[in-house]
């Protein structure tokens, strides 16, 4: 589990960067429209996540660091959320006209409720733990950044619900949902010092990656 958990993610995320890069090349060459930008930001996001996975694997498998958290890997992972968010936003924006004000209000309300729930679940264990500021910030950042992705991604499902594209958006949302759970558990276990490399919760990350890629 230890080797698989550390060596497998850079391989699969690297493959995802290559596939996304090929799509980007196809769109970029033919027309520099909204979807070229979507693929550009998506590829940049995936590349940063790949870097995060690669750096983590370097720390654990090469340098033998037990739990490299927080580390340079987190800088890449957290930075990756921004282009990924922009990619989703740009995609949804193209079809934004299909959303009614009621839908947008309901979506905003559900995102706010989820943010409050996640923050309150994590508040006591994380603030109670004796962590440095960087770890504290990362503990909150991951689940909250996941929710930021969810706030846009679920709009894609609503827009394309009865269409064939809904399936892709469903997988994307499922991957974000799994990541929210994984990141909450990760923040919780690192705050309690019960996390170790190869922990069962890493299966959630792998499952989330499968759903996304």
């Amino acid at each position, binding site marked *: 589990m230890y080797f698989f958990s550390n060596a497998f993610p850079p391989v699969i995320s690297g493959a995802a960067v290559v596939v996304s890069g090929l799509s980007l090349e196809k769109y970029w060459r033919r027309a520099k*429209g909204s979807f070229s930008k979507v693929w550009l930001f998506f590829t940049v996001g995936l590349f940063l996540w790949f870097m995060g996975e690669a750096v983590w694997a370097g720390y654990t498998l090469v340098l033998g660091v037990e739990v490299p958290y927080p580390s340079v890997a987190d800088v890449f992972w957290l930075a990756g959320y921004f282009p990924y968010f922009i990619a989703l936003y740009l995609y949804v924006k193209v079809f934004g*006209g299909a959303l009614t004000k009621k839908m947008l209000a309901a979506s905003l309300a559900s995102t706010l409720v989820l943010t409050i729930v996640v923050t309150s679940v994590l508040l006591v264990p994380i603030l109670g733990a004796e962590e440095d500021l960087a770890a504290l910030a990362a503990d909150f950042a991951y689940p909250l950044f996941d929710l930021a992705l969810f706030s846009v991604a679920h709009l894609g499902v609503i*827009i394309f*619900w009865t*269409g*064939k594209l809904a399936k892709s958006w469903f997988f994307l949302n499922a991957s974000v949902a799994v990541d929210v759970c994984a990141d909450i558990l990760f923040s919780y276990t690192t705050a309690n010092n019960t996390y170790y490399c190869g922990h069962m919760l890493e299966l959630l990350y792998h499952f989330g990656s499968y759903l996304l890629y």
Partner: protein
Amino acid sequence: MDKEKNTFEKALVEAVDEGLLMLGESGREVIYFRLKHSYALGKEDIPSHPEIFVECLRKIFGSGARVIEKAVIKSLYRRLGLKFAEKEGFDFFEYLREAKKQASKDF
């Protein structure tokens, strides 16, 4: 009458072309490919069977298809020199009928 019909149909084909461009050139080609292979409908046949075109869009994009339909309609109105005004409850076909009616008055 034939000339009038031809002008309208030509404008609609061009409007579809322009409207679908919001998906990028590759996206537009995918739609044309799907129309051709799943519905046996060529680009030039869209004016005779707009319902098939719309069905194809809705099957792929769900309610997101409305955005593409509106882009096509706006482009059509512009090409015909008509003023586009959004009307509540109007769908693609009603706008199309309205455009045909208004255009025939101008010819």
